[in-house]
């Protein structure tokens, strides 16, 4: 997190007045961020993290939580949005909580992200093959089938899942369940 990314309105006005360039990064540009937070493995720690977002008016687009290899530590993966200034506030507020052990903004690093999606869609004789074609293209799995509906399992980056759901909108979607994004830095 570079300090120079954090621009206040005053700073932007001053830069403009001085004719200094405002880099795309330090403008009010909103970007999606994936943040991994290692916290004490307790419900209280989880709630404090989520509560901080609502109490300070930050967004959460998705949040996942689960244990790690160390049973006393859980890892939360939070997807949030904001400009550089807001995100740096988010990171500072997160690290200041007593129960957070580590806070990593993965956004500007090289990281892998995955999400799991289950999607149930109605089919007819006419739409069946088209639906299965879409599924093939996205390399999903059929995990359940009845005479009226099919349920798919799809794994991948969130964008792929967005695209899959978009394609399936051509048909009658009954239900969608998404896991939220989990992410990890590459070495």
């Amino acid at each position, binding site marked *: 997190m570079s300090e120079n990314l954090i621009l206040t309105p005053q700073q932007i006005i001053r830069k403009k007045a001085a004719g200094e360039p405002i880099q795309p990064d330090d403008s009010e540009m909103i970007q999606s961020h994936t943040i991994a937070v290692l916290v004490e493995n307790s419900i209280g720690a989880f709630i404090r993290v989520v509560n901080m977002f609502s109490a300070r008016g930050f967004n959460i687009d998705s949040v996942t939580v689960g244990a790690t290899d160390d049973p006393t530590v859980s890892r939360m993966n939070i997807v949030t949005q904001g400009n550089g200034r807001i995100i740096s506030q988010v990171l500072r*507020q997160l690290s200041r909580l007593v129960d957070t052990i580590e806070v990593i903004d993965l956004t500007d690093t090289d990281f892998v992200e995955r999400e799991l999606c289950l999607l149930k869609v109605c089919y007819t004789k006419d739409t069946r093959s088209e639906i299965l074609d879409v599924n093939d293209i996205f390399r999903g799995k059929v995990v359940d089938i009845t005479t009226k509906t099919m349920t798919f399992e799809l794994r991948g980056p969130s964008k792929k899942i967005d695209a899959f759901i978009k394609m399936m909108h051509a048909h009658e979607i009954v239900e969608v369940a998404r896991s939220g994004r989990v992410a990890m830095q590459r070495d």
Partner: protein
Amino acid sequence: MTYDTHTKVHPAASGDALPEERTEITPSTQIMSGAEILLRSLEAEGVKIIFGHPGGAVIKVYDEMHRIKPEFQHILVRHEQGGTHAAEGYAKATGKVGTVLVTSGPGATNTVTGIADAYMDSVPIVVFTGQVPTALIGNDAFQECDAIGITRSITKHSYLVRDVNDLARTVKEAYHIAQTGRPGPVLVDLPKDVLLAEAPFQYPKTVNMRGYTMLDPVLPEKLHRAAQMIGESKRPLFYVGGGAISRNASQHLTDLARYTRIPVTTTLHGLGAFPEDDDLSLRMLGMHGTWWANQAVQHCDLLIAVGARFDDRVTGKLDSWAPHAKVIHIEIDQSCISKNIFADCAILGDVQDVLESLKSLVQPIDTTEWLEEIEAWRQECPLQYSNDGKLHAQGVIEQLRDQTDGDAVVITDVGQHQMWSAQYFRFLHPRTHITSGGLGTMGFGMPAAMGAAFGMREIGSSRPVICISGDGGFVMNAQEMSVAAAHKLPLKLAVINNRFLGMVRQWQELFHRERYSHTDLSDTNPDFVKLAEAHHCVGLRATTPEEAQSIIEEAWKINDRPVLMEFQVAKEEMVFPMVPAGAATGDMITDRITPNSFV
């Protein structure tokens, strides 16, 4: 005296422990109830005083207190809100952690305002709340409330103790968290069964919290950068907040400012961090700060913020605040840095250490011209009020100052009198000005003053403790007067009675076309003299400056109980200068203007 760990013989069986015996106990060998563990932990933590109110969920704690007679004093307050404010006042006056003990449900909810207040003003307090037995939690049991949930966003941290074996460690951690880093309130919720259960007691010597780590040392480059910025500046200004006081950095600040000849302005909470009778002091800045301090902010080329957070009452409209200034921000809380104002040089660290290191890196700079410029602003628009011979709040505050040579601990409530106290008292020492700044809690003053007075007594200080409140706020926690009386605290309670919610009245006059909606208190105000007497205090009243002088002198002769001095003043008085909320600091109102022009 040792206790058999196997048969769990409880010390109660052998009668009250004698104080001299108690100190010989090696704690590791004892089995005791959770309630006693709590009390022993407080003793081990060095707690000298707690403010509390009993109830069903904590009755065991009170029972053990009766039996073991712990080494600290328990003050029975008459309302839990009063208890939390008293703990805040104690903490702010002494620099130690304030402690509160209350029961579950309503006991806990009554502390909420005080906890929020302590959170906003970074006051180290630990609040112990009783809770229904663990098995009943979540059942809407009698006097159950989710104290942790309710206070989650107003505590630095909180604990629900589920196992008596975790209790001592939790107490240790709570006190550690409350007073380190940026201080703040910690809540510890204690289910009744945990207080009844037994366990061996051993108070941990150290804490081990991997998520709560101390700051990295400040990089020397940063310090050099700051020193360089100071060296290059022509019109530098220190802007000092409460962080300088809570980290005991006043002396370091004073040394550095005098050495470099850089003028100092403080926030409401920074009052006392730098002696206001020094030539370099510009007094308070912000909404009701001095004209010259705000002018200095608008014209400075370097702002050195020390333990301050660029609050909106200080900056007004952000875009046009300190337009020419580069900013050095010295702060312990990372989340304050570049939150509202961009810091060209942010130094995350202990204010005291940073100031000390800076002193060795900087040279005195020639600020003669800059100081002359500021002096001109000071002459242009001094603090003033009418000298029509009538009694004015500002005059009363000056009389109180003169009575004590400015060497007193002043606690204020919230409203006009709070701003006049800040403007007119002239604070010379750290920890002598205590107020509710962040939350702005009416009803803070009286109980906080009581807590401060207990603190002064504890540290053996003879500094008088003066509470200055309005007639509105005083009534909100007036019940604690009798507690102060019972403990013979020589409190001086000044009630500035303008028969109005004065500060709201001021806004109504200035911004709401003089529609004085529900701010007139004349019909509902008590007789303050009788109110004092009913609470075993002395009550005095003044309506003229002469009477004021004589009741002040009379009050200073009474040292065995609180004295309430009611000063009846005109309701029309306003606090000036003023930067209207959200306006630019340059647009200060310095005198009564034609009403409505701001509507």
